């Protein structure tokens, strides 16, 4: 893998590592190794997706409300950013394979830029959620409510539930309709959706950060001429497998987290 590559004096390092018999064996092993790693990644995200599915079966209403409270526009832009970065890294493999070193650096750099912009938007989105107070937690407050007999009481609910109510009412339209139909208990439980939201996007962001780190390293190596022997295109290819996988995760997160609720286009402007 790319991490196995030496940091300096690349020209002295043999292209075929000492324990391989030939370049084909090395390519096959490296590629296969990354595929196996991706299998573990699929199962890793599979675990949380399974938990998500089980919980959503129990609480469809809460998940709809939680998703409605999210900001779908930033996520939509981010989808296209990631798809484009998948495209550029594919071009980078080809450039490395053909020995076009300027092209390689260009495409690697653009992948890094697209990934970073994604993270920037994501940070903005998190900040928005933070400002709206959509943070699950044990903090409690009291609100006016009525008990089963219609008698007014003070009810202890989580701060999150109050914030969720405000956000949905502020969005208006269908969001407000959803909010009006919810009980305080349901608003409280919407926290679970947000745990999944932060957990899943957080893990995805973590994978993006690792990926961008590795890409920067490869850009550095490309600068140093590590990819001059075109046989080393394999490291870019293996890196791209990982990057595509991160994209794939997002493709599934997008409908599950952002599109599970009711959105209207009014909020754009």
């Amino acid at each position, binding site marked *: 893998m790319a991490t196995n590559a030496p940091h300096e004096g690349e020209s002295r390092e043999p292209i075929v590592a000492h324990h391989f018999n030939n370049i*084909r*064996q090395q*390519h096959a092993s490296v590629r296969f190794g990354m595929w*196996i790693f991706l299998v573990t990644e699929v*199962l890793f995200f599979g675990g949380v997706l399974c938990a998500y599915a089980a919980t959503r079966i129990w609480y469809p209403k809460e998940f709809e409300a939680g998703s409605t409270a999210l900001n779908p526009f930033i996520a939509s832009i981010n989808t296209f950013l990631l*798809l484009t970065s998948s495209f550029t890294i*594919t071009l980078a493999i*080809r450039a490395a394979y053909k020995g076009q070193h300027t092209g390689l650096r260009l495409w690697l750099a653009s992948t890094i830029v697209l990934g970073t912009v994604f993270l920037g938007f994501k940070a903005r989105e998190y900040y928005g959620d933070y400002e709206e107070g959509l943070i699950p937690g044990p903090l409690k407050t009291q609100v006016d409510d009525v008990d089963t007999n219609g008698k007014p009481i003070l009810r202890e609910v989580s701060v999150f539930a109050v914030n969720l109510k405000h956000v949905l009412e502020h969005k208006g339209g269908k969001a407000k309709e959803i909010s009006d139909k919810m009980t305080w208990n349901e608003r409280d439980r919407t926290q679970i959706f947000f745990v999944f939201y932060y957990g899943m996007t957080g893990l995805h962001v973590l994978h993006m950060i690792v990926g961008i780190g590795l890409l920067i390293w490869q850009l550095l190596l490309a600068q140093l001429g590590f990819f001059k022997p075109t046989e080393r295109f394999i490291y870019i290819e293996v890196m791209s497998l990982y990057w595509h*996988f991160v994209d794939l995760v997002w493709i599934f997160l997008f409908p*599950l987290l952002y599109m599970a609720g009711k959105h209207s286009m009014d909020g754009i402007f």
Partner: protein
Amino acid sequence: MSDHVQKPIVFEQDHAEPASVATSTLTFLFLAGLSCLAMMIGFTDLGAVKVWISLGIACVQGIILTVFFMDLRHADKLTWLTAMAAVFWTFLLFLFTLTDYLTRHYYAF
């Protein structure tokens, strides 16, 4: 042992060169188109079927991404097997866990 002639070891003879620019571009455009579709569906109110349609689109996108971008179409059987194993074992996890959630309220006695 020495009388055996060593045969050359051949690995993945069938692996082709990386995808051409045209293929990559087409794949990208296709994926982007599907993403647009996913958003159109996401912003409309289809009720209960919405999640299934969205997931269906995501699966199609995933297949295209794996087969074309991740070059599974040129890969050998082993790589296909690896990819399928991931899908199958995730399916197992979902199968049993969700069966529990969907049947837990049926009592035997």
